[in-house]
């Protein structure tokens, strides 16, 4: 491990090395193979300078040594070890080290904002207890908070890499995993208050990495990955760490917080190192397109960028087209965009747009999307070709015809000649060969092309379940292996189109907020009951959505209303750390399902359609 070196770290190419696309039994086998080549991982500083780098050989050596000492420490196969997931070589080595002890690594999130110390520590504590961790590894500078979060459990070890080395443990014989063993737990998606860890086996992981590397990215000798995605999210962990590792690709990392501070450092790295593969949710592309100035643009060369992956949240065609326009002068090719779809419950990827296609959209009648036209009508009219009531315009629209971003969720909708409003829905590509995919109606019927329904998938990469939580697992995963993704979408000519998340997850700046957490916080105030509050996301000023709550308001006095709204805002902020917009609505206006449960998605639609009066917004 060479520090502070001026050379540009692990190389892109490895002459005479035969690439294997993750066709290994376990992650250990994959690492051992990568270690036989000269590629590796490079970590860049906040200012974009190469800070630390290591070849996969060096990483294997260190990981194996740590793993052998984890066995000595007393960790047993299947025990969990939490890792505070900073973007560092230490994290990578400890994640892989656990594999030599058959211990499950559990990546944990980092703080992201000024203030909020207590809620961050509570979040860590809940995740540690949820996975029943036996050990915790933390960066030195996070130790104080981590020790506090770990005070309520029993741990064999809590500390930093330096602390672990100071134990001076002997090397035990490695305890190697088998292909059907669980390889790691992932907490990337899910409620912060009621967390559940997704269990992924070696076989699932390698199947998905192979599909991503071979079919999704078609990796070749000249490929080099650049990433700022956090290791505590599936796209960062699997997409830009485990896939490159198991397919022997060199990666340049920029820490997420440094990307957030200076987004263009990402594109500078791509340019300097001739990066070919990089991934981001929509907002990452958006922020770069909005920040870049003339001078910065003139210095960029993005012509090597072959796979500009998009995933992680809803893909916004207007934002993507804006990025294409802004960076065309830097040589960015629109065909480099690769929309994809996936979720942590399927390891990562389900579908990929064929390479070299770019963004393709299909128009869907907004009446279908906002629930005015039902699935049944859409379904029936499937056979009625060309009838406007089937909710689709004829065929595909031209995916590159849309211009500037203007920042509302339905901004890509347009009034067509027939006076109907349409929304452009992005083609998320073709399912990887390992998956079967079905679109089902509410009552479980298989739906034909173009009919919108729930997306179900089955395949090797589907999780074994939520760790220690059979009830939640059974709710989404059937005995015969079908996973309810929680997303709504439809198929057309073999491609998947995603409409949105049925689970109402609120995604802001790439972070998931679960409505039940936000509602729970508000319900702690006197006078508010379950069902009085619906947490939803609403279009904000920029391209992103903002979290909001719709709240029944019984007060009549304007002053009292203002106080009421301010109190709710403060309470939610205090309990969840989330800044929400408050919309007061008249009592008994929030819609319910037939079983009497609050319907967040209907509430959102009604509010956006103007079907619900706003008494006061804060």
């Amino acid at each position, binding site marked *: 491990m060479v520090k502070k070196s001026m050379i540009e770290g692990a190389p892109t190419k490895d002459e005479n090395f035969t690439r294997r696309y993750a066709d290994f039994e376990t992650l250990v086998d994959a690492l051992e193979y990568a270690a036989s080549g000269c590629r590796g991982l490079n970590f860049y500083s906040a200012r974009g300078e190469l800070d630390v780098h290591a070849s996969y050989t060096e990483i294997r050596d260190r990981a194996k040594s740590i793993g052998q000492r984890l066995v000595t420490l007393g960790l047993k196969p299947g025990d969990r070890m939490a890792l505070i997931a*900073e973007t560092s070589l230490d994290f990578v080595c400890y994640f892989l080290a656990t594999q030599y002890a058959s211990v499950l690594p559990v990546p944990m999130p980092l703080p992201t904002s*000024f203030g909020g110390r207590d809620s961050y520590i509570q979040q860590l504590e809940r995740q540690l207890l949820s996975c029943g961790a036996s050990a915790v590894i933390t960066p030195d500078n996070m130790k104080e908070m981590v020790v506090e979060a770990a005070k309520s459990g029993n741990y064999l070890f809590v500390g930093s890499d330096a602390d672990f080395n100071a134990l001076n443990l002997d090397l035990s014989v490695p305890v190697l995993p088998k292909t059907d063993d669980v390889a790691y737990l992932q907490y990337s998606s899910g409620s912060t208050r009621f967390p559940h860890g997704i269990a992924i086996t070696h076989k699932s992981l390698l199947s998905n990495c192979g599909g991503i590397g071979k079919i999704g990215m078609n990796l070749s000798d000249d490929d080099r990955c650049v990433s700022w995605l956090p290791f505590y999210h599936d796209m960062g962990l699997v997409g830009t760490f485990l896939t490159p590792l198991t397919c022997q690709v060199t990666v340049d990392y920029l820490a997420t917080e440094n990307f*957030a501070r200076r987004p263009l450092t990402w594109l500078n790295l791509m340019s300097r190192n001739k990066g070919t593969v990089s991934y981001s949710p929509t907002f990452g592309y958006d922020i770069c397109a909005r920040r870049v100035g003339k001078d910065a643009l003139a210095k960029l060369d993005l012509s090597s960028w072959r796979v500009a992956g998009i995933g992680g949240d809803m893909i916004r065609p207007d934002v993507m087209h804006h990025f294409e326009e802004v960076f065309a002068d830097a040589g960015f090719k629109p065909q480099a965009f690769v929309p994809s779809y996936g979720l942590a419950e399927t390891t990562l990827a389900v579908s990929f747009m064929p390479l070299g296609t770019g963004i393709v959209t299909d128009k869907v009648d907004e009446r279908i999307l906002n629930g005015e036209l039902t699935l049944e009508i859409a379904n029936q009219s499937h056979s009625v070709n060309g009838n406007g009531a089937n909710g689709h315009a004829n065929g595909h629209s031209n995916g590159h015809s849309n211009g500037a971003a203007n920042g509302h969720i339905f901004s890509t909708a347009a009034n067509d000649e027939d006076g109907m409003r349409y929304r452009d829905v992005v083609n998320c590509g073709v399912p990887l060969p390992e998956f079967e995919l079905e679109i089902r109606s509410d009552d479980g019927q298989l739906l034909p092309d173009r009919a919108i329904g729930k997306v179900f998938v089955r395949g090797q990469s589907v999780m074994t379940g939520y760790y220690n939580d059979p009830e939640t697992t059974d709710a989404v995963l059937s005995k015969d292996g079908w996973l309810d993704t929680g997303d709504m979408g439809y198929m057309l000519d073999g491609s998947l189109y995603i409409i949105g998340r049925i689970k109402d997850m609120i995604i802001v700046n790439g972070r998931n907020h679960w409505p039940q957490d936000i509602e729970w916080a508000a319900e702690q105030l006197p006078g508010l009951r379950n069902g009085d509050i619906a947490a939803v996301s609403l279009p904000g000023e920029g391209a992103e959505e903002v979290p909001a709550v719709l709240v029944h308001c019984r007060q009549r006095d304007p002053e009292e209303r203002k106080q009421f709204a301010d109190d709710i805002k403060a309470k939610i902020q205090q309990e969840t750390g989330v800044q929400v917009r408050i919309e007061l609505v008249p009592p008994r206006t929030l819609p319910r399902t037939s079983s009497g449960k609050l319907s967040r998605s209907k509430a959102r639609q009604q509010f956006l359609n103007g079907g619900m009066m706003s008494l006061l917004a804060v």
Partner: protein
Amino acid sequence: MASDANATNTFETIVGLIEPFNRKNVTITPDTTFQGDLDLDSLTVMDLVAAIEDEYDILIPLNMLPDLETVQQVADAVDKINQEK
């Protein structure tokens, strides 16, 4: 461009750096909080952190952020990092 490591100046400089992000036009006092009063989301906060870092040519470590609730606390942290440079 770095200002004198003088507590009052640091506070005022940081107030100036916050202004472009102060969309709600909050009157900034030493006790103004970033989450509660200024209503800054996590990306905007990082943008502001970058502006402060550039102004003083320092790096504010990520692990310090959760303890910095108010503008004065950030000013004090900047002075402390500057002194240790």
